[in-house]
């Protein structure tokens, strides 16, 4: 591995690093939606899902209430 590659790998290029952060957010959002949907289908109450995610019941219900009932 050249010095250049090492520097990029260490997150030295802000553009690359920021793109990674953005992609991680997108990824986390998608995984959250999948998991919440599954939990609802398995009959989990909103409060339990909220506790697992570390957010308020209102927050999780507002975000997914319409989509996943």
């Amino acid at each position, binding site marked *: 591995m050249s010095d250049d590659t090492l520097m*990029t*790998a260490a*997150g030295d290029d802000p553009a*690359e*690093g920021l*793109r*990674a952060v*953005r*992609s*991680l957010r*997108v*990824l986390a*959002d*998608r*995984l959250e*939606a*999948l998991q919440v949907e*599954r939990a609802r289908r398995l009959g989990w109450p909103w409060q339990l899902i909220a506790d697992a995610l570390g957010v308020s019941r209102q927050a999780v219900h507002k975000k997914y209430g*319409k989509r996943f009932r």
Partner: protein
Amino acid sequence: MFERFTRDARDSVTRAQDIARSTGAGRIGAEHVLLGAAAQPGSVAARSLDRLGIAPASLAESVRALGPDVLDAEALARVGVDLESVRTQVEATFGPGALDAAAASPTGRLALDPTAKKLLELALREAIRFTTNRIDTGHLLLAAARLDGTSAAKALAWFGHDRAAVEQAVVATWADGERE
């Protein structure tokens, strides 16, 4: 403003909403209007793009590649996340295509974002420039090519055609008497 739009131009905007929703965009951007126009069979935009050798599907592909909601596999790899193995794991639990299908898909009407509004405004200006009262999908395409810095313009540029080439194709399509 839509009363001056041809039917195809109006349908492009409607289609743009469906395209935006299906890709989980959450708002209608200039790129969705461009794809909406390209997807209208026989429209001035579709015929002009055909002249440039751009198929609607490949245009959609280049928009997707430039879009903001992409999971950038390379960037993720640099922080130690292997997107492919995440995808494999997720699909094992949630089924094929689950990771992409999980992109937020809001219901109800989507709003036009500033780039889409700008595109419609530029289309009106293009119609004035070509001294016509009607705004057709050719004007939408010309406007998209003018929107520097947006993924609509970048997607067109990606095929190696600059604004002048796009204009030439649209003017040629009009000259063939292909109106909407």
